[in-house]
């Protein structure tokens, strides 16, 4: 039987969800009996081939995020929004209280210690969206794995359910954060 292919990426996130993914610890070894990784920071593969599951951390803050998310949606049968930023925008979305112009001016023109003030315009740099958005506002999302970050147990639970062919359902304890 061929292995289940999983791709992962972090958009406007902090990689904390990926670190938490690794908190599955020794269970990862067992998991690798059934899964293999496609595009992911773990493999350094740059573009997705067709996959079964896509795990996306972080929200959308720039044009490149949108391209990557669309690639994941196109290539992954099941797309999971992972963590607070992917689901709600999270910490990066705190800039939504300001205009993107105010953000850029603060960072590149008026900020403390700015030398040679200039808003960068190199075409290599992805343009910022006017606001930070959660994933489901740009593509269809199949499942949500909440938490900041979701625990290693929560990653293991959702993947175990999917591998068993079940509708994922997290027990209440894994959705309780205080």
């Amino acid at each position, binding site marked *: 039987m061929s292995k289940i292919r999983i791709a992962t990426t972090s958009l406007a996130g902090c990689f904390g969800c990926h670190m938490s993914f690794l908190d599955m610890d020794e269970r990862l070894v067992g998991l690798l009996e059934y899964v293999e990784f496609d595009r992911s920071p773990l493999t350094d593969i740059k573009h997705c081939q067709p996959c079964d599951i896509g795990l996306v951390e972080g929200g959308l803050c720039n*044009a490149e995020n*949108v391209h990557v998310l669309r690639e994941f949606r196109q290539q992954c049968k099941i797309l999971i929004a992972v963590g607070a930023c992917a689901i709600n925008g999270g910490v990066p979305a705190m800039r939504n209280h300001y*205009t*993107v*112009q105010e953000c*850029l001016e603060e960072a590149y023109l008026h900020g403390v210690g700015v030398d040679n003030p200039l*808003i*960068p*315009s190199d*075409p290599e740099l*992805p*343009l*910022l*969206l*006017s*606001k930070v*958005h959660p994933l489901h*506002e*740009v*593509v*269809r999302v199949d499942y949500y794995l909440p938490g900041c970050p979701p625990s290693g147990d929560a990653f293991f639970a959702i993947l175990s359910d999917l591998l068993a062919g079940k509708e994922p359902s997290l027990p209440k304890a894994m959705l309780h954060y205080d």
Partner: protein
Amino acid sequence: MQVEPLPSPARQQLADHLLHRLHDLQDRHHYIPPDTIAPLAAELGLPITQVESVIDFYSFFHRSPRGRFDILFSNCTSCGDLALMQQLCDLLEVQPGVTRADGMVSIDQTSCVGMCDQGAAALVNGRTLARLTAAQLPHLANLVNTATPLDAWPADWFAVQDNIRHAGLLLNDTLSSGDGLRAAVQAGADQLLAEIKQASLRGRGGAGFPTAMKWQFCRDATAPEHYVVCNADEGEPGTFKDRLLLTRYAQQVFEGMALCAYVIKAQHGFLYLRGEYHYLVPSLEATLDAMRAANLLGENILNQPGFDFDISLVLGAGAYICGEESALLESLEQKRGVPRVRPPFPVTHGYQGQPTVVDNVETLLAATHIALHGGQWFRDHGTEQSAGTKILSVSGDCATPGIYEFPFGITLQTLLAACGGQDAQAVQVGGPSGTLVSRAEFGRKLAFEDLATGGSVMIYGAQRDLLAVVRNFTHFFAHESCGFCTPCRVGTPLLRNYLDKIATGHGTAYDREEMARLGKLVKRRSHCGLGQTATNSLLDLLAKFPQVCADRLLHQDYEPFFNLDAALATTRELTHRDDAEAHLS
């Protein structure tokens, strides 16, 4: 027992209350100046944070200056006309929500102002403008531009009509001042309670709790004080019967409060009046004074030793949630109107933690009639489970909108025939939180056991876009959610976004499914009645009028919630870029 000092009979002013003080500041300065907050808090003995939170909670208080003329157009589906708002904005060269540079005028929307039988309606500096038409707007704009005081505006603009179209048991009954109270003190409090019970009177606000049981629970609760509160925060869009009752029958409503006080042994009562009905305050105060003079309020009422009771008015400030009884009590206690966790219920722990009866205006009016005529007189009307009559506020697409009193149990069909609304494609019964009824169901009965209603009946003719109607309701709830619980605070704006997306032609079947799923979640998980009912009309629309939504959907799997390329426009401009990577399709 500590006896609360009774207000002076001569008092013309509203009681000293944070909301009233903030109304005063707002009137004087057109906003709440920051430097007035700390002194006010100190004077009232309240924490500064409490004053700050109250300012932010209520729609009628502002942190930045509004115009000398602050004009708020109702956005209700019955008494609202936002096209008029836009016309007036154009005439006065002002953007909605933005005060004109000279400080003269600001124009914005507000939730239903209770003029649904005589729209379009607006408030100007808190005073009600009814039956507005496009033709009078140039004149109105001129009055604003010339800074003409409101007292010099045409008086008929402010006239509010009664529009009683069909009177029944209560509205036809002629009572003299004090009839109910005299009958009650003659028979005694136990007998009065027995008559209310015999009448099977149920709360008229919509929930239908047995009134006698409420009074009994409150009476049985031992505590230093007991209170009666009349809930006149009539905020459900499409409801205006309490406005009529307080215009024409205020004496009987106050008498109903005194009757309740007689049963539960309360010495003080409050009438919590929605801020939109500010204009009723002078007549209500005059009625209270007349009752004090006639010994129907005050000490030893009708010469009954120890029957001491008086009533104060408290004026709300534009918060629908304060119609929820525990939120209303919070508001009375000078706090934000956030619903309390229940139990304990107000009958044991209400105003200031004391046993409190909170009754609807119409319930208290009915109690006065029952005190005079007896319970059986009332019980003989209506249905098995819904005794008596219901005073209905009928509005929307019908020949004669207005007040209709019918016995409980009449069919919607009968009501529509009476008001000339037979051609309706749908009727919203009970306001946005109620039930959207399709033509096929017009045989259903208006009664607690079928279509329960606090009185709102909004009629929608064939030409109405029901999606626009439900979208309006959903915007209303998203605006009025108090923000306390997540399902409602987050859920109602999300539903609003879905409906906006569908209405603007960007919705897909996926959005409709998500909306239905979310609608059920908000209904099941919200803390109070607002959230629990906020999605009723939406779920009704999807179930009963599936085509209305289906016709608008795109035939594709998914469509983003915003225009991606437009979201890059600002940064394209700031970086002077227009290359391929600077665009998203």
